[in-house]
């Protein structure tokens, strides 16, 4: 981004995009519906499984496919694991931005590696999972996966306490985060913010509670909301959400039923959804991730549009940064938590 300074304070700020633009939508329109799934891994490469879920959810609303219960449970478990590792990685990244030389980052990545190993055991790849299919998941859980996931979820609160001891009370961190770039709820809604940043500004809007997609209504979990909406709130909301995800995981790992993993009637290869359009969205770790699909009955999507939470959360970046110091610009950009794969698509 081009930042114009007057001494230390920011006068003008213009974000510049397009360096990682590979026109994901044009590629998807050239390939079949199934071939688009591996490309969704590359959108927000920190949370591949939630991207897959958003795309398959949109296709299921388009074609009206039902998803068996076991597949819904697996989807919720993998999505919550992804949210966990994304929020933990966020804590590490924002500390690295503030110059803490990577110690919080390394602890976060130590835990994230365990989650990625689980993904590799299930889907075959740590980050490029390509796991969800229309009407369910590609393959069932390997033996012993649930036990290791249980162990991980068991040990996670202890790790979160350690991270909070290192971070939340730290006076320097408080001085640098509190009171920086506050945001009012109306401005956040009008600016199209979604996800943890919107809830940090005090708006109670979590798509898992609003749309109740994918059996989320069956699990008891709380949605934290901030009051001031500054960088510290955005940081704390993610810490509290990580704890809520651990709650959901505990309930899901216990209650997972047996049964088919994919809807037997759904055809994967020559899949031709009926003509029409659909907008499906989920609560991704970074915000509302939506897919707007238009199909004209052929085996290629006519229009494949991704609603990128990272790009739209940057709409208010200039407004937040005016009048702050350079060191704050780093912290504000860090607190919005963007991934460039999703910003530029």
């Amino acid at each position, binding site marked *: 981004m081009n930042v114009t300074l007057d001494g230390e304070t920011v006068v003008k700020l213009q974000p510049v995009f397009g360096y990682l633009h590979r026109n994901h939508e044009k590629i998807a329109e050239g*390939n*079949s519906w*199934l*071939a*688009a*799934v*591996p*490309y969704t891994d590359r959108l927000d490469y920190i949370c591949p499984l939630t991207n897959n879920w958003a795309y398959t959810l949109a296709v299921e609303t388009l074609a009206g496919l039902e998803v068996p219960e076991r597949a819904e449970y697996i989807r919720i478990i993998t999505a919550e694991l992804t949210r966990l590792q994304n929020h933990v990685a966020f804590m590490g990244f924002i500390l690295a931005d503030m110059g803490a030389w990577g*110690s919080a980052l390394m*602890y976060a990545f*130590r835990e994230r*590696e365990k989650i990625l*190993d689980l993904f*590799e*055991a299930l889907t*075959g*790849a740590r980050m*490029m999972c*390509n796991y969800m299919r229309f009407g369910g998941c*590609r*393959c069932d859980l*390997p033996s012993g996966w649930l036990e290791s996931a249980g162990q991980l979820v068991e040990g996670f609160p202890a790790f979160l306490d*350690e991270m909070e*001891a*290192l*971070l*939340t*009370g*730290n*006076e*320097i*961190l*408080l001085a640098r985060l509190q009171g920086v770039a506050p945001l009012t709820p109306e401005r956040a809604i009008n600016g199209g913010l979604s996800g943890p940043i919107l809830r940090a500004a005090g708006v109670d809007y979590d798509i898992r509670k609003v749309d109740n997609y994918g059996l989320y209504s069956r699990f008891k979990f709380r949605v934290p909301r901030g009051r001031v909406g500054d960088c510290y709130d955005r940081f704390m909301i993610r810490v509290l959400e990580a704890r809520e995800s651990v709650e959901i995981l505990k309930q899901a790992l216990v209650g997972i039923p047996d049964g088919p993993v994919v809807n037997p009637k759904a055809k*994967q*290869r020559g899949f031709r959804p009926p003509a029409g359009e659909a907008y499906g969205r989920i609560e991704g770790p970074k915000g509302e991730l939506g897919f707007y699909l238009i199909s004209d009955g052929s085996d290629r999507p006519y229009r494949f549009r991704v609603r990128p939470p990272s790009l739209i959360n940057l709409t208010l970046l200039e407004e937040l940064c005016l009048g702050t110091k350079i060191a704050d610009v780093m912290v504000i950009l860090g607190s919005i938590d963007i991934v460039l794969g999703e910003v530029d698509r």
Partner: protein
Amino acid sequence: MNFPGIGLLKGFVVTARNFLGSYVEKDRLTTRQYPEERPKLPENSRSFPFLVFDGEDPEAGMRCVACKICEKECPPQCIYIIQDRDAAGKPLKRPRIFDIDISVCMSCQICVEVCPFESIRMDTDYELSSFDRFGSLVLDKSKLLKSNAYYHGIHPTEASETDARIEADRKKKEAAAAAKAEAARKATAEKAAKAAHPPEETK
């Protein structure tokens, strides 16, 4: 008690615990010395595709029949198949050229899913870097072909499931063939029987 600086002290305690812990607990020292300690990959981890052949001779036992479904379905279009023809030019159920350009392949495993003949599977070997950007990054048929035993080595459960499925298909086909042969035989028998008695009806 909340006197100023308590947050910093707690932070120091955490880093100290990690510093001392890295000498004591195994969990707090996670680096793997790669060349010496190889990572133990989980069972269904995947790197690049390879072709499975049964029995000993790679060419003869190859399962692939060059139906080109995987070539169509591959998202980045990195598979090249040219069907084999015998001397008379009649297309054979075997690929003459089967190249996978692993510099383009994103190991998404869709070819494995769509292949009706269970002939392409995902390998786990990840040390494929080479100096030559063109020649050695395009694996031709000879480099791709690996025996079913090797397949059992890397993905035991998946391999046994595939074998079970192939067994079931073969048995079903034999049963169908036997039933067809049976029906054909019955039909010829009736025809023969009809041929034997036609004179009565024509009186």
